[in-house]
């Protein structure tokens, strides 16, 4: 190309650059389109494969593991069904790990809900998560070597749990972290915890879980009726307590389930 001089040449040069840009634009769009269609084809095939081998995937753990591994590498959850809901990573911005942790949190919270009314202490949740994931916890290897860093084997931290709970938000399941006194608790039921209940939880946590009206009234400086009403709400309306009518301390005592630990 002859290198021109003057204003006309400058204009022509500008036009050249523009047309090059357009060409490159359309080229990259083309290859992007191809890639996109290849990817969607691939995903469709993968879904087809999943549908075909659904039973096998469900029954055979080894097959399932390698299939899931393959799927998670490319961000597909074929087991979630035909809708767009299958694309966990896209929808929720969760990595596989976070997603998995989220599922385990839900698993534990739902599994314990009947017992504790949907409130679980953070420490306890982490302990159960670790158990579920086969991570040795502080108390399970206390008999062995001491002072071992818990980070070694992919331990779960409070921060991980907080982040996973945050990513569960779009599901509308109502998972929330609440502070009761100096404790953090995870709530898995959409229910307001009123101030009186929070006070009782705090008292119960500080003395080992068992409370009764006179004790609560004394500790919180309430009339007894207020303590009775709050405790009965926790027992009868919210399922946060279990009662015992054979205790020596009072005709009826209330055990706040979320501050207890069962081996």
């Amino acid at each position: 190309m002859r290198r021109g001089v003057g204003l006309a040449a400058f204009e022509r040069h500008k036009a050249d650059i523009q047309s090059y840009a357009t060409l490159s634009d359309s080229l990259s769009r083309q290859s992007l389109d191809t890639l996109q269609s290849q990817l969607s084809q691939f995903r469709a095939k993968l879904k087809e494969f999943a549908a075909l081998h659904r039973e096998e995937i469900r029954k055979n753990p080894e097959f399932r593991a390698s299939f899931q591994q393959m799927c998670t590498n490319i961000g597909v959850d074929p087991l979630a069904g035909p809708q767009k809901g299958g694309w966990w990573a896209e929808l929720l911005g969760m990595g596989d790990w976070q997603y998995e942790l989220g599922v385990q949190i839900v698993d534990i919270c739902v599994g314990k809900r009947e017992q504790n009314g949907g409130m679980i202490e953070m420490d306890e949740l982490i302990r159960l998560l670790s158990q579920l994931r086969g991570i040795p916890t502080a108390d399970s290897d206390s008999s062995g070597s001491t002072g071992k860093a818990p980070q070694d084997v992919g331990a779960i931290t409070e921060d991980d749990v907080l982040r996973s709970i945050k990513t569960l938000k779009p599901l509308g399941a109502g998972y929330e972290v609440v502070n009761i006194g100096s404790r953090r608790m995870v709530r898995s039921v959409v229910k307001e915890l009123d101030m009186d209940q929070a006070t009782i939880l705090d008292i119960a946590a500080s003395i080992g879980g068992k409370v009764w009206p006179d004790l609560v009234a004394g500790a919180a400086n309430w009339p007894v009726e207020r303590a009775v009403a709050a405790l009965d709400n926790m027992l009868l309306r919210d399922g946060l307590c279990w009662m015992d009518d054979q205790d020596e301390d009072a005709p009826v005592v209330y055990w706040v389930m979320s501050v207890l630990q069962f081996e």
Partner: protein
Amino acid sequence: MERRRFETHVTSTGFKLPSIHEFPALFCFQPFSSARSNQEDIWTRLILSYARHRRLFTLCADDAEKPSSDWHEVLSNERIKRKLTGQQVTTLLQTLVSRNQAAYEPPKQLSSVILYWRKPEEWAEVLHSWAVATGQLNTIMTFYEIQNPAIESDLTDIPSGLLRRAITILTKTQRAQFIEGGDGDGVRFFSGN
């Protein structure tokens, strides 16, 4: 204060009680419905696994009240001074029956059951395999011989009601036949192929 923690306990008969058995409120039926159904699950599971552990076939309402009962270490917990009442056990019997994990025995009363820690269908298979293994096909056997074999078997002491139910299941596939005898009931097994 540290969180209150409940531990498992191994009984004198070698049964490992779950940590919730140390929890006093487990012995008081809960008014909140989901806690209550959780509690009944815990009790029925405990009863069936203990029955399997000790090969106990029957549970009666008054097993809760008698310290000499085979069930004492499960239906009560002396370490925490708690025990179920006969009334509570009656309720659990009802739950077990409604879930097909037990049947009232004798029928038409509500205070004692045969426990199905193996389903009658499973007992039928155990029974037939035993008859085959011990070479008892095509001969007439009394219930007594099955319940008191020379060499102890899985079927030793099986209650007659349950045995009859198992045999009835085998008759449907022509693998057994009731024999009416003068002194007690009898049965004949067939290979059934």
